[in-house]
């Protein structure tokens, strides 16, 4: 039996990063995994709460049953832990690497000690599952004959696809880019997510029968004719831009373009020199203090930038959780990412006034310090008179977030209604203004976490499945008959261990 006092006696541990010098030399992931023993110990710190805040609405959006797999890992039953994890999360390898882990900030242990290393355990479970070959395709037992189209192959689209396929529907995922994966493929640097991690999952999905179609330009109306249901999961990729003098200069690049290009390079693609953006030998300023900015920073360091600065309009948050965001809320606090260790310098309360340059290329950034104002609970900033400055900068990366789904592609003329903020409008069942057309992920809720995208994809899949089951039947009987599968009956669970 576990020591119920382990949370008192064992200290929190998380995987260590390679040194900044070492990791800046390569494009691979740089965390050094904990040993199984260490992970089991970490799992035993879980208090198996009567009300696990990590698991509820305050914590994990996909409702990972965290106490359950913590317990399983602590007693070495990795196989069962994997089953438990996969029951709520299609892609724990993504959340394990990329999620900011609201579960950990809601962890009850966080009230009195450092929280349980939930994310590290999650990643370890699924990586081990792939290593051991436990993660096999799970084709459906029977085909329903329904066909579902999914537009967008980001985490929301993929999660919806896998869920719907496992319900026996024929699923095709359409991706505009040349490779499947959406932001995962081109928006996340490979040192945070090696693309092989994505590929092995896509491989599983294809073996389950999901059809993945990259480089596809589609429109909703056509798809509606071909399919019984359509899921719009195109993300929220419309970038927030900066309308200041000098914006038209070259050398001012949107973060996503910059990150995508490096991902193409990492994948062995050749980037046309005319379009190539490279930080080597440059003074880089990243505008925007969020994760994308930090991803850009890490990329620039690896590309060999001379200097990298990251400007944030807002003031520096407190070092620790303060009373404005009490447990179990997501705390407003300073988060220092890998990039900052690697040499990205952050500056707070900076507003950009203008860019200047020569030969059409940016050379300087003009900024001003601002001070925060809080009026009627609304936050704003006001410039500090006389604090204007100018610094040399020959590469500017705009990482100020996103304003919603792109309205120029799939959504243009689709007839799908939008909300006031520009997101796809749906009812509680994820259905858009067009019956049979559903939406999920950032396209529906605005830019958010990967884990929310997965949750959205799963919720939408449940809604689509119910829609299909309650509709009169497949509109188009698929030409091919049901895929043959093995024996009837249900898959067997492994006998449970009782500790």
């Amino acid at each position, binding site marked *: 039996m576990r020591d119920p006092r382990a949370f*008192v006696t064992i200290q929190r541990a998380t995987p260590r990063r390679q040194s900044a010098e070492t990791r800046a030399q390569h494009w691979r992931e740089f965390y050094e995994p904990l040993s199984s023993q260490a992970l089991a110990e970490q799992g035993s710190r879980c208090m198996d709460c*009567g*009300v696990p805040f990590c698991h509820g609405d*305050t914590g994990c959006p996909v409702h990972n*049953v965290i106490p359950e797999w913590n317990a399983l890992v602590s007693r070495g039953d990795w196989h069962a832990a994997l089953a438990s994890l996969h029951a709520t999360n299609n892609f724990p390898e993504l959340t394990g690497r990329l999620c900011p882990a609201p579960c950990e900030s809601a962890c009850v242990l966080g*009230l009195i000690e450092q929280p349980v290393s939930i994310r590290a355990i999650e990643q370890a479970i699924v990586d081990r599952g792939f290593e051991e070959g436990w993660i096999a395709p799970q084709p459906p037992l029977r085909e329903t004959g329904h066909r579902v189209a999914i537009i967008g192959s980001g985490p929301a689209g993929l999660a919806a696809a896998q869920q719907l396929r496992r319900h026996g529907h024929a699923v095709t995922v359409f991706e505009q880019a040349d490779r499947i994966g959406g932001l995962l493929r081109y928006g996340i640097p490979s040192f945070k997510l090696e693309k092989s991690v994505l590929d092995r999952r896509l491989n599983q999905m294809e073996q389950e029968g999901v059809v993945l179609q990259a480089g596809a330009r589609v429109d909703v109306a056509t798809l509606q004719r071909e399919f019984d249901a359509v899921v719009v999961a195109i993300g929220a990729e419309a970038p927030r831009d900066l309308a200041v003098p000098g914006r038209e200069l070259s050398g001012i690049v949107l973060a996503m373009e910059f990150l995508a290009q490096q991902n193409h390079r990492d994948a062995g693609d050749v980037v046309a020199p005319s379009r190539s953006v490279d930080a080597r030998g440059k003074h880089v300023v990243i505008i925007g203090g969020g994760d994308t900015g930090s991803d850009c920073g890490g990329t620039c360091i690896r590309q060999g930038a001379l200097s990298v600065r990251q400007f944030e309009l807002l003031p520096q948050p407190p070092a620790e959780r303060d009373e404005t965001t009490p447990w179990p809320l997501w705390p407003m606090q300073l988060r220092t990412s890998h990039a900052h260790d690697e040499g990205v310098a952050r500056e707070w309360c900076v507003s950009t006034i203008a860019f200047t340059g020569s030969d059409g290329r940016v050379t300087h950034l003009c900024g001003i310090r601002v001070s925060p104002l809080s009026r009627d609970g609304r936050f704003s900033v006001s410039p500090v008179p006389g604090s204007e400055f100018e610094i040399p900068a020959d590469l500017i990366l705009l990482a100020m977030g996103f304003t919603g789904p792109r309205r120029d592609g799939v959504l243009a003329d689709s007839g799908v209604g939008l909300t006031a903020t520009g997101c796809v409008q749906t009812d509680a069942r994820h259905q858009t203004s067009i019956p049979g057309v559903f939406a999920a992920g950032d396209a529906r809720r605005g830019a958010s976490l990967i884990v929310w995208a997965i949750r959205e994809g799963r919720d939408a899949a449940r809604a689509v499945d119910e829609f299909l089951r309650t509709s009169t039947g497949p509109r188009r009987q698929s030409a091919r008959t049901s895929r043959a599968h093995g024996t009837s*009956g*249900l898959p067997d669970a492994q*006998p449970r261990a009782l*500790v």
Partner: protein
Amino acid sequence: MYDPSHEHDACGMGFVAHLRGERSARVMRDALTLLGNLEHRSALGADANTSDGSGVLLQIPHAFLRSVCTQAGLALPEAGQYGVGMCFLPRSTATQRAAEAEVGQLAHLHGCRVLGWRDVPVDVAHIGDVARRTLPAIRQVFIAPAALELDQSDASAFERTLFAIRRRFEKSRVAGRRSAPSYIASLSSRTIVYKGLVRSSVLGAFYPDLTDPLVTTALALVHSRFSTNTFPTWSRAHPYRFLCHNGEINTLKGNLKWMEVREPRMESPRLPNVHDLFPLIAAGQSDSASIDNALELLVHGGRSLAHAMLMLIPEAWEGDTAMSADRRAFFAYHSALMEPWDGPAAVAFTDGRHIGAMLDRNGLRPGRYVVTNDDFVVLASEAGALPVAPARVRAKGRLRPGTILMVNTTQGRLVDGDELKDELAALHPYQRWLTEQRVLLQVDEGRGAEAHPLSLAARQRAFGYTSEDFDVVLAPMALTGEEPIGSMGNDTPVAALSTRARPLFAYFRQLFAQVTNPAIDPIREQLVMSLGVILGPRLNLLETSADHARVIRLDQPVLTPATFGALLQQRRLPVAPLSAVFRADGGAAAFRSALQALCTAAEASVRAGAQLLVIDDTPVDESWAALPSLLAVSAVHHHLIRARVRADASIIVRSDEAREVSQIALLLGYGASAVYPSLALESIGAADVPAPPHTARSDAAHAPTPVDLYVKAVGKGLLKIMSKMGISTLQSYCGAQVFEAVGLSRELIDRHFTGTSSPLGGVGLDAIAEDAVRRHAGAFASGTTSRLPSGGDYSYRWDGETHAWNPATIAALQHAVRSGSNATYQDFSRAADDATRGGATIRGLLELVETAPAIPMDDVEPAASIVRRFVTGAMSFGSLSREAHETLAVAMNGLGGRSNTGEGGEEAARFGTERNSAIKQVASGRFGVTTEYLVNAHELQIKIAQGAKPGEGGQLPGHKVDEAIACTRHSTPGVTLISPPPHHDIYSIEDLAQLIFDLRSVNARAKISVKLVAESGVGTVAVGVAKAHADLITISGDSGGTGASPLSSIKHAGVPWEMGLAEAQQALLLNGLRASVRLQVDGQLKTGRDVVIGALLGADEFGFATAPLIAAGCVMMRKCHLNTCPVGIATQDPQLRAKFAGKPEHIVNYLFFVAEEVRSILSRLGARSLDEIIGRTELLRQRADLGGRAATFDLSPLLHVPAEGNDIARRRASSAKESRIPAADLELLEIVRPALEGGERVMVARAIRNVDRTMGASIAGEIARRHGDAGLPDDRITLRFEGSAGQSFGAFATRGLTLELTGEANDYVGKGLSGGRIVVRPPKGVTFLPHETVIVGNTALYGATAGEAFFGGVAGERFAVRNSGATAVVEGVGDHGCEYMTGGVVVVLGRTGRNFAAGMSGGLAFVLDSSRDFARRCNSALVELAALAEASDLALVKRLVERHAKLTGSARARHVLSHWDESARDFVRVAPVEYLKALRATDAPKASTAGGQHA
């Protein structure tokens, strides 16, 4: 909600008889005196002169009757040639004549004739208003055989004829005109009963017959009643025809059912046409009347009085290895004829020739007797009830558990149980019959379960298994052999309102004992418990034959593949298998028809000769779904009863569904005799369960398997469930239906669970069918993962059961109280109320009716006055950390509410400070209940039950007992503390009255409250409590929290408070008692809405426990029982206590938020104060917007107001009487005042009688008030008495107070002794042997914390139970001596009863074991026995014996001292192992000085 059929009674009783059967008027006179002296054990109702009834049974006073009849012109034949019927008839002439005519016709039908009628004179001046209103016409009828001569060859034939006449008269009365009640109190040629709603002291005055000098009798049975009903009836007074009873039959429901079941098989030449008399036990009677009926049936059927009593109330023979084989065979044989009528019972009985008395196996009622030199025997509930001069006493004694006592008039002596039992055992060759007939099973232990076509996982899904079922339920059972434990309360919806398909089991709640009958401790008092079951037909009860022994006996009811296989293979009892499945695609229709087909098939099988029915829910696959096993079993059971063939077969269940203890208990409770939980066993077998740690490899082969451990855990759990109802044997539990339902329709209940209470209605068969289909469909749906769902019943899970306390509500409440933001509180309150309305609770189905115009908030009473009605829950220092406990106290004192110590005492440093808990709890463990503690209370709360585990005791594990807690509880650090399930001074309602009297005596300033838990019948209990003079009654809901309880109790016992509160309110109104008590409610109250609904349903006050803890930082870890609370609340771990961050203001903020919310609702209702709305259920109605299952509820019973409630206050009246201080105490207090205040020594000498109760407690209270537990110097006040002291002599006596008694004392001597000294010695010159004669009653020194006591004789059962520090010397003790003792020293200079030292975890006992057989009677689970080796022990014992000799003049002690060297060798030291270890660890010489305060 209130159902008068729940009425309970208890009382005082006794008899006077002449040993040689000589009639005299003296017997009659003495009996009436005795009866008068038992009056304090009965109760008075709403009107002070109407008692609950009393009565006397005597021999027919022929001379008297002939004389009065002759005067009236009615000639009576010779004695014995006629019968007298004592009739209560309607007062209206016409109906009276009709009833009399009917008696005449029935007499004629039975070959008899009515000689005439006589009006029995009564003097109504002696009865109260209620009694007068209901006074029947009391007339005697004289009946003689039509033929002139009686059949002399069968002297009892005429008695049987009279019995038949009476029974048929009763039947016609029930069947016919109900509005004209007629009742025959007795109809016999030998005995007559005079009884009624008359105070016991004036029975003789009311019935002048009784005091006529011509009335002579050789025996008289008397009884004085305490009923929970203030409108008791004339007929319910005792004695009945054969017996009177003190106590309660817990198993009554089952007994009645099985009697009904046996009727079709009954035949007897002695009772021709017995079928005309069915039902033999009239419906709607009290338990006592019912057992009287059963007794008379057995006696008229030909068995002797003693034989019949031993069949009905057998002793605990199963585990008694010392019993002779013949006697065992006698009991074993009869166990196949009759299940025990189990319950706390002292019964006195007579057939007019023989008279006797007995106690049931638990022996929880007192019975003391005296035999005089002039051949009288007097037995009564109390010693001294009939004063007998010491010189007249030939012998004295007490009734003992499981023993029977008979007066043998031919030999002129008392015959004891052993002799009687041996005689009876020799009547037939029972042993041979058992050996020859018994059906033996060929059990092949290696046999596995039959393979099932479906995979294990598929079946687990089909039967709704969750991962919690493994992790929380099955795994702990299979690993440890114990029931799983949890903590905090239940905040999940009642089953009918859950959005998930809950198993049918979840609709049922266990019933439990409170006040009117005690729960049992099945671990410490295992000797009375039995899980044995008998399979086979129930043959003719009125016959004795070898065939009756042809049954299968199982040690316990849980079958394994091996035993199940063996049952199927045996050939002597024909087996019929019955499938309990239905076509899943047929929906509800298929479900219904399958159920019907199952019943039909069962009946057909039985008619075809099957004697074992095997109901099997396992043949499930994709197309076939299982019927709920509980429904299948109960439907078949009731169908067979209705078909009158139930007696012919036993029901066995093979169920893939049943897995939890409570589920198996339900199957047994609704008719199964054995259960094979096939899937649970297979799941455990298939799982990878590691061997328990510390098992050496070589032991592995002998180590119990996980399956063995699971079976063991189920057995233990069943014992616990039975024992919380006070039921000892599974045989009596089977079919007893000690459950109630919440949320099932009446139609479903009436048809398939006949007799079960389900007052609010709910879902019917279709919904149950729908759930079964849904569960089945879910299991076989596509896309199902192989993983089982989480469940979320015990811990919150997003996709599991909903919990009222979830991340959102907890976070919002904590944020609100810390920031002081009312807006955030509103977020919390909205979420909590939404959850409530969403189906979590009954109150969620109600809405407020705004009948009056709203008023401005300013006109509503301020929040500061509302919070004064708030109290926090009873949570002990021990279960809570000191920090948390004191935070609650400071908060509640600050706002004028009250906090509650819980069961664990309070550190004396807190008394008189802001950290003092206003409510001091007195619970069964009496931990830290010192006199100083008691006098520092504003309210003393007697905890009868706790919502999370009603009917159970508690346990504080050793690892939570640190120095401070041990000190507060008067125990040893590190040693586990056990609270017994019952208060050992409350086994019935009159005992509660006595404890209230005790507490009132010691602290007259405190209010006395009694905490009950909601269950059906709580209303009658509340009435009883009110009649016992409590000031406040708390009704706790089923959902209350706990530091540690079995999960099955947290989930499956008790009902929501709404039901309990409404029932209590209605019962109190109906009985005119509402104004005299305050009602308090608790159980997961959270918001202003909760409070207002509580008030509307009748509550004056409101208890909060979980919510204040959450305000103080609790995050519902539900780990209290592990001591690992991370926020420092429910832990004693210093590292974790340091994490406690709660502040009193958090709790204050919370309660003020609630109060403000209450105010805003009041203003909407147009009410200026809470007082204005208490009990106004017309301001509530069932929500109109309810749909689905919620709409099947009918909440009108909750909102019902009895007509009596229309013109009286529905709340406690401000004019209600305040606490009463016993007048006698005031007088004594005056006398001793100089000693209290100054330095004078005071000595008082008095005579004392049994009616002088709780002597000394008020003085003790005054000492403690002035001087705390330190008390006064030794012997400052000495009280000397002579006579028979009443109950609780010397209770709570403090240092400086000495009570000396020459004579004898009753129960509870030295209860709660807190440093005082008690000496009881026999009078000089007695002829009996003191060391063999009882001198003090049961439960002496219960909960004593310090002081010393010397008893010059034998004490009753449970001597020094829960003693934690007193020193006592006694010359012999009854059963269960030193039970649960945690400290102090007890020296026994003589024989002990059985089960000595059970649960004893501290202190030392020294027993003089001259006959060297003490070890057999000692429960050595916790203690080790050793000779007196250490010099310190020898010195201690010698010193105490010397003091005993000096103080009591004991001849026994002098003898021991004069032969000290030999005696020293005979002493055995009894010492708890854990205690010795702890002492050695601390190296404290406590053991040798524990009793040395006076040395």
